[in-house]
């Protein structure tokens, strides 16, 4: 499940951001264009691990045309934050997608489902979500 987020209303830097990356295991600013917000425990990783590896984890939705139709990001999306309560409560894998050019465009994209490829470095310790097929 992908949910569109549009406009530039975000004030917070996000859960993966830290002013002290050396102590915190890294820092990723939340909500930037071309990133997604994920579920807690995404790929079996802790928050600290996501902070370290989030920029090396790539989510590639199959229907790129749908994203570009509303002016959203295309190509692989990396991880930058934790998504809303609905994202957390979704039984499968779900993402908030940053960002569509306007709030209205994000709302029009709304909630979409499609097949998706997720890639991550082996060294991250991540594991494939249930229902996904591992491609060597």
């Amino acid at each position, binding site marked *: 499940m992908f*949910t*569109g*987020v*549009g*406009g530039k*209303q*975000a*004030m*917070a*830097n*996000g*859960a993966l*951001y*830290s*002013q*002290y990356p050396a*102590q*915190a295991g890294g820092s990723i600013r*939340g*909500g930037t264009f071309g990133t997604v*917000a994920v579920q807690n425990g995404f790929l079996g990783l*802790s*928050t*600290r*691990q996501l902070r370290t590896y989030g920029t090396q984890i790539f989510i590639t939705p199959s229907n790129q045309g749908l994203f570009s139709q509303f002016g959203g990001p295309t190509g692989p999306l990396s991880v930058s*934050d*934790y*998504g*809303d*309560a*609905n*994202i*957390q409560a979704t039984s499968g894998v779900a993402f*908030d997608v940053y960002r569509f050019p306007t*709030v209205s465009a*994000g*709302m*029009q*994209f*709304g*909630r*979409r*489902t499609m097949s998706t490829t997720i890639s991550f470095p082996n060294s991250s310790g991540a594991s494939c979500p249930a229902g996904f097929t591992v491609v060597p």
Partner: protein
Amino acid sequence: MKTYIMVVISLLLAAGTASAQCSGALKFPAQLQWSEAAKVVAPNRTWVAEVHPVLDADENRTPVTLHRCYGTGSWPLFTLERSAELRWGADSSNILVVNKPLSGTNKLLLFSVPSLTTGTKGLPPDALDKAVNEALTERLGKEKHAQFYLPSFVSWKGDDLLLAVGGATYTANVGPLTPYCYGMRINSSTLRVESILSEKELKARTGHGCQVSP
């Protein structure tokens, strides 16, 4: 005599430390972030809310605690997982927190300092959020489900708390989202939602709008 002088010096030093801890400009709301230390002093400079970042943990679990400016004692308020806005009530007896543990979903917390520090039973801190959520669910109706829930502060005079409650809803599992925005006037003592303003009324009366998207 020597002991007496030492005690007096110790007390003066302790008072000096406490005074320094609660000096400085008062700024509301305080924007809190899980990895940054912060102190938010009450208007009467009797209390201070402190953020002590825990940087080396697997999960963000930064404690926010209440302390006396003069004297001992501390009380846990909440765990800061991401970011939050904290403001003191004008009489320094309440703390309102717009906690933002997730992108797109805020949680309101209202702390009563007397209840907290004397151990007297009061409403739980998340009772305000429950009251707002219930009023919102009723207003949206059964068909609409909130995807984003982003209540924010507008004003607080006496017991009259006004919030802008915005976000987006969905009706079908797949499809577009629809924005919503209401003003909610709440009695901060009873947590009763006294009235709900439309987006237009909220804007006209206060000049405030809602945040509808993270």
